[in-house]
């Protein structure tokens, strides 16, 4: 018998071309740089293959290997505190009847809008050598693990909170009714219903916080002092000592825990979904005076912590010279007078964020559409899916260094991109590809899988169904992807710190460089500029999407 070979339609071929183009992007901007950094770690300065020599050197230098222990220490401690705070806060937000819930939630999500350098700067003003409330540390030094951990708690809290709140809010009220009818006490119900229901969320949050912390560069750079961690070691090896090979080795070591955490997290997420049944009845908390006030108090403390960090930075930015002259001044905003690229770097950041949001959203959504709705070429599609998931496991520092190795190589025809805005956009899109891709895939999966079949049976080319149905229906998700990319492009330091050029300095990098040069107040001012930009864009996005939704999603409501 002769097997039937399915003829591909014009649609199939066009979609394949699109997918291959986006796959080529991921190969050039992700796979090949990663290969470059991998091979670099096995080479000496002259590019000769030397096997494991660099690794042997790394592990026989205690000054370097000590960072592994440091990185693990601060990451584990941060994970414990951040997840505990996030869980208790999320519990209050979902299970109590306390007041001002939405205000608390907004405040808790604020740290997403600022670079991870910012809490460190605030901590210097609060607990530094001349800190305002230095006495609270009882003689301990804020520079070092304490400062890093506090900064990272601030930085990771919103991420943990979102995950845990999702896990807690899918609780099935019927389980609680069952527990009550079986005379289970509040504590027993908590341990037998609440915790098991949220366990995948908790594990997932723990891995996300751990990964964010161990790969973060901003906080240890600003507040780490002499306490070296892996992420700052990469920077020091590359920028300080020009030892690219050792930078590559440290990068690969940093890649390990990040990749491991990523895969465990994916596993947990998959299990989490299975817990959610379509028949679940939403849990409605009942008022309880004591509990509600307790939760209100706790949420207030967390909010005060976050607001203190922000307000301290704003305060530092507008006074003349802390702590000697506390009068009002705008001199710290004269960025053009300091190292770091001046106001240009702020506008460069706006440009980068704008391009990343527009081009990134287009690439990510098209890619997700082709991989989800295309026909045939199954093997190619799973390779694409893998490439799209990979960036999540690659720390920004590693990606940035990989880009240097790949794009700065004189043999690379793409070499001209180095130090341009283009390479910043290319790297930032790749850096934040995975979450955006998953958002798009989730939205596409919620659509009826038969839309494309119906379109084909009605002789409509795929781009008609895509533009007339898929795009309008997925518009909310598309807006979410663009704001996600914008905000992250504004705040990111880790990948771009290796890639900016004399004319393409960025606001976040300026914060880093001004802080490095001792201009801490201007660094705080610039950090707050990033915050205000992101906050403004977030609000505009909110208004815009409400308007757009009203106009284009009218069909969602029955009337």
């Amino acid at each position, binding site marked *: 018998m002769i097997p039937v070979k399915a003829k*591909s339609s014009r*649609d199939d071929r066009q979609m394949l071309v699109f997918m291959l183009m986006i796959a080529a992007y991921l190969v050039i901007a992700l796979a090949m740089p990663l290969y470059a950094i991998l091979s670099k770690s096995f080479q000496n300065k002259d590019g000769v293959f030397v096997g494991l020599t660099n690794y042997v050197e790394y592990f026989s230098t205690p000054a370097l290997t000590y960072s592994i222990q440091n990185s693990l220490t601060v990451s584990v401690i941060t994970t414990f505190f951040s997840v505990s705070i996030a869980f208790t806060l999320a519990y209050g937000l979902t299970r109590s009847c306390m007041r001002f819930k939405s205000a608390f939630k907004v405040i808790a999500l604020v740290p997403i809008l600022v670079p991870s350098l910012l809490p460190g700067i605030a901590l210097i003003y609060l607990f530094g050598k001349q800190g305002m409330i230095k006495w609270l540390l009882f003689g301990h030094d804020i520079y070092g693990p304490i400062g890093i951990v506090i900064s990272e708690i601030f930085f990771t809290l919103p991420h943990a909170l979102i995950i845990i709140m999702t896990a807690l809010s899918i609780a099935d009220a019927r389980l609680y009714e069952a527990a009550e009818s079986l005379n289970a006490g509040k504590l027993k119900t908590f341990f037998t219903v609440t915790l098991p229901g949220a366990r995948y969320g908790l594990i997932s949050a723990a891995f996300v916080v751990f990964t964010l912390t161990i790969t973060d560069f901003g906080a240890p750079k600003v507040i780490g002092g002499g306490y070296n961690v892996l992420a700052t070691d990469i920077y020091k090896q590359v920028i300080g000592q020009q030892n690219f090979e050792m930078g590559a080795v440290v990068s690969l070591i940093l890649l390990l825990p990040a990749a491991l955490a990523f895969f465990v997290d994916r596993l947990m997420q998959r299990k989490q979904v299975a817990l959610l049944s379509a028949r679940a009845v939403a849990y409605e908390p009942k008022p309880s005076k004591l509990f509600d006030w307790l939760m209100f108090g706790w949420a207030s403390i967390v909010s005060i912590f976050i607001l203190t960090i922000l307000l301290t930075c704003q305060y530092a930015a507008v006074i003349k010279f802390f702590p000697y002259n506390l009068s009002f001044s705008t001199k710290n905003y004269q960025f053009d007078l300091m190292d770091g690229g001046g106001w240009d770097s702020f506008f460069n950041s706006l440009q980068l964020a704008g391009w990343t949001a527009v081009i990134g959203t287009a690439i990510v959504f098209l890619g997700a559409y082709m991989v989800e709705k295309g026909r045939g070429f199954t093997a190619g599609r799973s390779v694409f899916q893998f490439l799209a998931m990979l960036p999540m496991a690659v720390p920004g520092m590693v990606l940035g260094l990989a880009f240097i190795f790949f794009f700065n190589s004189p043999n690379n025809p793409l070499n001209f991109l180095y130090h341009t805005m283009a390479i910043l956009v290319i790297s930032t899109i790749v850096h934040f590809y995975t979450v955006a891709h998953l958002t798009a895939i989730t939205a596409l999966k919620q659509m009826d899988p038969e839309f494309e079949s119906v379109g084909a049976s009605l002789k409509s080319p795929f781009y008609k169904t895509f533009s007339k149905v898929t795009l309008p229906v997925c518009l909310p998700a598309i807006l979410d992807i663009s704001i996600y990319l914008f905000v992250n492009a504004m705040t990111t330091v880790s990948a771009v710190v290796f890639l900016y050029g004399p004319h393409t300095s960025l606001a976040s990098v300026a914060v880093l460089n001004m802080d490095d040069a001792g201009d801490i107040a201007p660094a705080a001012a610039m950090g707050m500029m990033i915050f205000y930009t992101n906050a403004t864009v977030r609000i505009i996005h909110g208004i815009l999407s409400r308007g757009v939704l009203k106009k*284009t999603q009218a069909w969602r409501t029955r009337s």
Partner: protein
Amino acid sequence: MPQSPPYLQINNLTKKFGEFVALSDVSLDVTEGEFVCFLGPSGCGKTTLLRAIAGLDIQNFGSVHQAGRDVSSLPPAERDFGIVFQSYALFPNLTIEKNIAYGLESLGKPQVEIHSRVEELLTLIGMPDQGKKHPAQLSGGQQQRVALARALAISPGLLLLDEPLSALDAQVRVKLRHEIKALQHQLGVTTIMVTHDQEEALTMADKIVVINAGVIEQIGTPEEIYNEPATQFVAGFIGAMNFVPAIINGENNIQIGQANFSFEPPWQRSTGKCIAAIRPEDIKVGSEGANTLEAEVMEVEFLGPFVRAELASEALGEHRIQADFSANRVRSEQLSTGSRLIVSLPPQSIRLYTGE
């Protein structure tokens, strides 16, 4: 007189998903204008067959010819069919008009023509004033009608219906059953419907294709399928049926337990073990006719217009059979658990199968 070739010809179709064989060497002809139902339990391969005909999941082996054209390997867009899915798959952001006009626009018809065709179809499905609404504002039955109109808009040569009624309430289902059948009859479009609901298949189809485990068990009119089930599977899947192991011990004679029963010629086969089958409604109360049997009512189940009684008989040994009695009969004979009665198993109602 030379017969015109069938409109749709499926030859030796095989479809595998990995190791799993979803369809095995399936062949089938569909005449132009015919209403065919693919009937079978879930996972039997009926939807796979429909999707192969549509080109949505192309078979591994075998051919599909439509209107004399070999479409075996063509993608859906190059075939000639309209399709309605169980989920309707109406475009949620487009109005009913836009949904129905979707295919017409792709064919590049002039606006005036599209408009009048949409009006015509809206009238055809009995929803002339609903064109400006969105799908979410319609009931399930209305959505199904719109999906049908959308599929019919481009006047396809073949209409494919994938479990179109199974997401609807029982009453709406019965109503739409008649509407779809009437519409199909009116337009004369060749139609294939996939269903797991035997009542749907029996009432709507000109021809039923019973599929089980990737193989066609029987092809026939509803009457043929019901009255002369070709295999034990078909006999058990459509309608209710008693199955009892039996031994053929002579011409037109079988033995069940201790008792001998006669049956009619078409079921004669070589002597030996077999399975005897009889429908509960064919069992008669009273001592008239052949194959009579004394039995005791073990259990009764009230089913509205009739009562299904479980009967035990010394002659049958451990085997029990079910018999349907009209509600009137039950009342007049005062049948209840423990009643003893004489029933007859008419020889023309007994079927024999080889067993599986």
